[in-house]
């Protein structure tokens, strides 16, 4: 390659990116479009790119006349709870895997990989039986526990790779400077792990936020329904009320967006540093 890249090539590059962006974002646009289209126009206007009339009626109905807010709150509790607990445990485990040699390390890593090998469908019945036996059906706690259990292996490996990217010298320098191992962890390693923590939090949060299968199995009561399960009620109750369902979907995107805006600074740093040093 010469140093001067041809304008044709860079135009092609932008075109490819634009095509990809359009492809990725189109469903989101359609979601928003249908949410804003008045009910009576959804079928008559079919696949028109822009509706002739827009309305916020769907949003109003969803927020004030369905248990949507309760679903929303439940999902928030479950997702934040799962993200926090998982990240905490994964950070501890990842640090240990990264820094210490101990008996059984290989075995534990192997077991964690094995848990990732089974399709969820296979273990959904045993999980149901266990949760039922504990009398925890229809509770948000059971979801947090199950989600945490399923996310820990991946989150641990993610955190481990971030810790691996932080030179051991830094901790040792801190210990020479007078820190205990824990102080070194808190004052030197922790601030440098923020991108990793952000990435892990974000990953686990979205995974929990959109999880349907377990929520469907373990939750039946309207009070503890999470958002993805609640979304299904639009299908049964109103014989697929597309407008409201899409409006609910748009609202469901908000916390994810806020969360990612909040952590994206760390996420970008985190993903790139992971990529370079991985």
């Amino acid at each position, binding site marked *: 390659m010469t140093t001067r890249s041809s304008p044709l090539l860079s135009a092609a590059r932008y075109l490819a990116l634009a095509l990809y962006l359009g492809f990725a974002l189109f469903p989101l646009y359609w979601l928003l479009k249908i949410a804003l289209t008045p009910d009576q126009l959804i079928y008559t206007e079919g696949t028109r790119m822009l509706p002739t009339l827009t309305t916020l009626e769907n949003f109003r109905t969803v927020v004030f006349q369905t248990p949507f807010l309760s679903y929303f709150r439940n999902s928030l509790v479950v997702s934040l709870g799962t993200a926090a607990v998982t990240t905490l445990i994964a950070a501890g485990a990842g640090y240990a895997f990264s820094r210490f040699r101990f008996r059984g390390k290989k075995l534990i890593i192997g077991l964690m990989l094995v848990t990732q090998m089974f399709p969820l469908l296979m273990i959904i019945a045993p999980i149901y039986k266990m949760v039922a036996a504990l009398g925890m059906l229809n509770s948000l706690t059971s979801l947090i526990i199950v989600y945490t259990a399923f996310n820990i292996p991946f989150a641990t490996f993610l955190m481990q790779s971030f810790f691996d990217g932080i*030179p051991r010298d830094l901790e*040792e*320098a*801190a*210990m*020479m*400077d007078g*820190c205990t191992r824990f102080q070194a962890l808190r004052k030197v390693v922790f601030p*440098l792990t923020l991108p990793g923590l952000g990435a892990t939090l974000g990953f686990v949060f979205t995974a929990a936020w959109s999880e349907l299968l377990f929520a469907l199995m373990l939750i039946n009561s309207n009070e503890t329904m999470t958002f993805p399960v609640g979304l299904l009620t639009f299908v049964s109750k109103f014989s697929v009320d597309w407008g409201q369902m899409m409006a609910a979907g748009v609202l469901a995107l908000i916390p994810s967006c806020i969360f990612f805006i909040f952590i994206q600074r760390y996420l970008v740093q985190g993903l790139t540093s992971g990529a370079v040093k991985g």
Partner: protein
Amino acid sequence: MARMELRNVRKSYGSVEVLRDIDLDIDDGEFIVLVGPSGCGKSTLLRMIAGLEPISGGDFLIDGERMNDVRPRDRDIAMVFQSYALYPHMDVARNMGFSMEIRGAPAEERARRVAEAARTLGLDTLLQRLPKELSGGQRQRVAMGRAIIRDPRAFLFDEPLSNLDAALRVEMRLEIARLHQRLGTTMIYVTHDQVEALTLADRIVVLDGGDIQQVGSPLDLYERPANRFVARFIGSPTMNVVPATGAAGGVRLADGARIALPHLGDAGNAVELGIRPEHIDVVGAGAGDLEATAELVEHLGSDTNVYAQVDGLGPMMVRVHGNIAARAGDRLGLKIQARNAHVFAADGTALRRAERSA
């Protein structure tokens, strides 16, 4: 101020022994350099002194106090890492003052000491910068500043200059030498660069294969290497070693030449002769101990390096002070300065010189 003693110190990882029976006394204020090829255990030894690596056996004492199980933070030793290990999220001032911050020193005292150290190291204007905004040499200075600020009883350096370019390395080497002169604190310095070792050390410890090969002053190691390894490791260019047979009052080389070595009491069990490139003189063809053809001649100005092919012996390097007219392809006579020759037995140990009162 610190006197250190290592008594039969050992290190093993599982069944792999990396250091064996290390015995070493380090005097207060001494500058000790640990050298050896990579994998010889020199860095491991330094880290054991620092407390970053557990000691598998033996005792390590500072000022008579056993340190084996004392945590790094309680040993009162500062260390400069090869990677500098500056805290990336702290500015220069906080990096340098971190040890005082951890120990709860008041902010004004901290600021005063940081400013003082920054001045001596020429970092005054950089105190608010982050490590990533500094050049390699500046980072190196900050790492040193972080070490000196706490006035520790000993300094450890783990190949501190190996990430710098050649010019900067010379400059920082002088800086470290000055630092030692000024502070007079015990320093232990690990390097694989023998020039650093020879220029900085009061005493050099040569390590190889987990054993101490020799401990001595730079000149000691240069003039009286204890064995073949030290002889070839210390000194640049490397010493020539050629097969030889011990004979009365000297050795006989493979090409038949006899070298008289009157300073050796008995060279009877010699198998090799060692001679440094600077201890061979170039004379006219037929006038020396050996006959050779020059293969390559390097004119360095101050010196001339001659890579010669010696008849019946193989390659040998010769360094002559000043300029000589030799050119590639010339026939040369080589005269060995017998009193500077070394002789090694089959196990590699150097045969002791009879005379020479140090």
